[in-house]
C-alpha cells in the first residue's frame, strides 16, 4: 500500500513538470465516473451544510428541554384530518405510561406545521435571528426523530452535534496533517541522525495504543474550562495521536523525492532549507496527503464517539453525535427508544461516505487507473 502510493507521487511529480493537462482536471473527470464516490461526496456536502446551518434547519435549539416529554417518540406527520386533506400537521401527545414512557396521540389537538417560522433565538456569524425552517406552535412539539431523556429534540441535536462531530475530524486532521507533514518533511529531508532520532520518537508515539493515550490525555484536560475550549482541546489531543503514522509515510516520500534532481537544482540556486521543504518537496506529497486525509477523518469521528462512550468526550448538555449515541447504548434505549440510535446511523453514513469518497479519490489521483 505504501509502495503504490509512493509510486503515485513520482508520476504526479512527472506530470507536474510536464504541465500538459492539469492532473486535477483529469482526476476530477475520473472521480465523476466513480458513482459511489460522487454519492459519498454529495452526502458529505449535505451533512456539512446541515450542520453549519443547524440554526436554520433545526426547529429547536440543542438545549431546549421539556421534562414532561422524557423519551418522547417521533411525532407522526399527518395530512388527513377527519378524512379531509389538510396542511401537514401533528397531533398533541399525552404520556400514557410513565414507567415505560409511552406517548399516544391526542386527536383533539392539532398543530399545523409552518415553514420559515420564528423559533428559539440564535446567533450565526454575528447575525441575530430566530428564523427556522419549520416548526409548530407551542404548546405543540414536533419531534421528527423523537426526543431524548430531557425531552430535547433529537433532530435538532443532530444538526448542532454535527458541528462538533464533523468538524472535529476536519480540524483534527488539519492539525495532525500540519504536524505530520512538517515533522516528516524535516526528518526525511535531513536524513542521518536527525532522521533517526525523529523516527524513534514517532515510533514511541505509535507504539502506545492510541486509545489509552487518548484516555490518559483526556484526564489532564483542565477542569472548569468553557465547553468550546474543551472541544478544541479534545480535537488537539486526537490530532496529537494521529500525526505520527502520517509523519513516517511523508518522511519516506520526502526521502525519495529529495534525491531527485530538482531539489539539487533548488539547493544549487541557494534556496534555504525550510523553503525547499515547504515549497518544493511537500507539495509533491499532495496526492497521497489528500487521500490520506479523506480516509482518516472517519477515525477522528469514531474516536470521539469512543471517548464519549466512556464519558470523557464532548460534555452534555452540548450535543455531539458521539455523546448522543453513547446515551443510546444501553439496554433500555435499544429496546424502548430505538430512535436514540439515529446518531449512530449518522456516524455510520458519514464514515461510509468518507470511505467511498476517499476510495474514489485514490483511484482518481492514481494515473494508472483507466476506466
Amino acid at each position: 500500500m505504501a509502495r503504490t502510493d509512493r509510486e503515485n507521487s513520482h508520476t504526479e511529480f512527472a506530470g507536474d513538470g510536464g504541465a500538459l493537462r492539469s492532473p486535477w482536471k483529469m482526476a476530477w473527470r475520473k472521480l465523476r465516473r466513480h458513482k459511489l464516490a460522487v454519492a459519498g461526496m454529495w452526502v458529505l456536502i449535505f451533512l456539512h451544510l446541515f450542520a453549519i446551518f443547524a440554526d436554520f434547519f433545526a426547529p429547536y435549539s440543542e438545549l431546549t428541554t421539556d421534562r414532561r416529554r422524557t423519551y418522547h417518540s417521533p411525532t407522526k406527520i399527518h395530512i388527513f384530518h377527519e378524512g379531509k386533506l389538510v396542511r401537514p400537521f401533528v397531533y398533541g401527545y399525552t404520556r400514557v405510561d410513565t414507567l415505560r414512557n409511552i406517548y399516544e396521540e391526542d386527536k383533539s389537538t392539532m398543530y399545523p406545521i409552518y415553514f420559515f417560522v420564528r423559533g428559539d433565538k440564535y446567533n450565526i456569524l454575528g447575525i441575530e435571528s430566530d428564523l427556522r425552517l419549520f416548526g409548530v406552535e407551542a404548546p405543540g412539539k414536533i419531534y421528527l426523530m423523537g426526543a431524548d431523556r430531557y425531552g430535547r429534540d433529537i433532530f435538532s441535536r443532530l444538526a448542532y452535534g454535527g458541528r462538533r462531530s464533523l468538524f472535529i475530524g476536519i480540524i483534527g486532521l488539519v492539525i495532525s496533517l500540519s504536524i505530520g507533514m512538517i515533522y516528516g518533511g524535516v526528518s526525511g529531508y535531513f536524513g542521518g541522525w536527525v532522521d533517526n532520532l525523529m523516527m524513534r520518537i514517532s515510533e514511541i508515539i505509535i507504539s502506545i495504543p492510541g486509545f489509552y493515550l487518548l484516555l490518559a490525555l483526556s484526564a489532564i484536560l483542565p477542569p472548569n474550562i468553557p465547553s468550546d475550549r474543551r472541544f478544541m482541546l479534545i480535537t488537539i489531543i486526537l490530532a496529537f495521536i494521529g500525526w505520527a503514522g502520517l509523519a513516517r509515510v511523508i518522511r519516506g516520500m520526502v526521502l525519495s523525492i529529495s534525491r531527485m534532481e530538482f531539489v539539487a537544482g533548488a539547493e544549487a540556486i541557494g534556496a534555504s532549507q525550510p523553503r525547499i521543504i515547504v515549497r518544493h518537496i511537500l507539495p509533491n506529497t499532495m496526492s497521497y496527503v489528500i487521500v490520506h486525509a479523506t480516509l482518516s477523518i472517519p477515525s477522528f469521528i469514531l474516536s470521539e464517539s469512543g471517548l464519549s462512550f466512556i464519558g470523557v468526550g464532548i460534555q452534555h448538555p452540548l450535543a455531539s453525535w458521539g455523546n448522543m449515541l453513547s446515551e443510546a447504548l444501553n439496554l433500555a434505549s435499544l429496546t424502548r427508544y430505538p430512535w436514540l440510535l439515529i446518531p449512530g446511523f449518522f456516524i455510520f453514513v458519514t464514515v461510509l461516505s468518507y470511505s467511498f469518497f476517499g476510495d474514489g479519490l485514490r483511484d482518481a489521483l492514481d494515473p494508472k487507473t483507466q476506466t
Partner: protein
Amino acid sequence: MFRYIVRRLIYVIPMLLGISSLSFFVMQLAPGDALTTMALSPDVSDEIMEAMRARFWLDQPPYMQYIRWITQLFKGDMGHSFLWHAPVSWVIKQRVFNSLLLTVVSLIVAWVLAIPIGIHSAVNQYSWSDKLLTFFAFIGVSIPNWFLGLILLYLTMTRGWGFPIGGMTSIDFAEFTFWEKVVDLARHMFLPTIVLSTGTLASLMRYMRSNLLDVLRQDYVTTARAKGLAERVVIYRHAVRNAINPLITIFGFQLGGILGGASLTEIVMNWPGIGSLMLNAVQGQDYYLVMGNLIIGGVMLILGNLTADILLAASDPRIRYE
C-alpha cells in the same frame, strides 16, 4: 542479516524508556493519583492516606518514582499495582492468555477469510459479487466494534441463538474433559471473535484486492498471459504471491498489537483480557500496571515488525538487510 537483527534489538531499550517515561509523565499530569478516590470513603482517615502514600512512594516527586521503577525494572520487577494490591507481572499474567487467545483467533479468522475474498474480488473486478463484497467491507470498516458487539449480544438474547453472553468459560469449566473445554471455549469465543475480526477482515480484503489489481496490471503478468499460461496459474502462482508481500508489513504490525487488546470490545463482550484491564488502569492512574503493559506491548510491536521484515526478506529475494 544477523547483525541487522541485533541492531534492531538494541533499539528496544531506548524505545522502552521512551514509552514508559512518556506514559508515566502523561499520567502524572492528571490530577490526583490512584489513592485519591479513597479520600471520599468515610472510613479512611488522613493518617491512613498518608501512610499508604508513603508505602507506595506516591509522596515522592514524580521523577524519583520513575527512577525507582526503572531500576526495579532492570532487576526484572515491574512494580506494584495500586488497584490490585499485587505485583504487576502477576496481574498481567492473569490476563495475557485470554487476550492472546482472542486476538490470535480473530486474526487467523480475518486472514483466512480476507485473502481468498480479496483474490475473488480482484479477479472478478466490478462483478456483482465484487461490488457486494466491497460494500460489506466498507460497512465493516465503518461500524464501531463496541456498537456491533452490543447489537450482537442483544440479538443473541432476544433471538435465542444459544450463545453465552459474556465471559470466557462456563462455570463448571474446570471439571470438563479436554474436548468439552474446547467446545465451551469456542462457544464463548464465537461472538467476540466476530466482533473483533470484522474490521480487520474488511480492511485486509480491501488491501488484498487493490494489491492484486496492481500486480495484475504489471508487464510480467501480461507477458505470462501472452506466453499462454493458464489464467489460474498466472494468478495463483505468480500474481497472488507478489500481492501478498506488502501485506506482510501489516501482519507484523498486527502481531505487535495482539497484546494491546481491544478494550471497548472486551468490556462490552465481557472478555477478561488485557484491554479492559488497561482501561481501568489508565482511568485509575495505576501507573506501573499501565507502564508494564505498554512495555510488553512495545516489545511485541518491535518483535512483530522484525518478524515481518524477516518474512519479507525470505519471500522477496530483492530485499536484503545490512
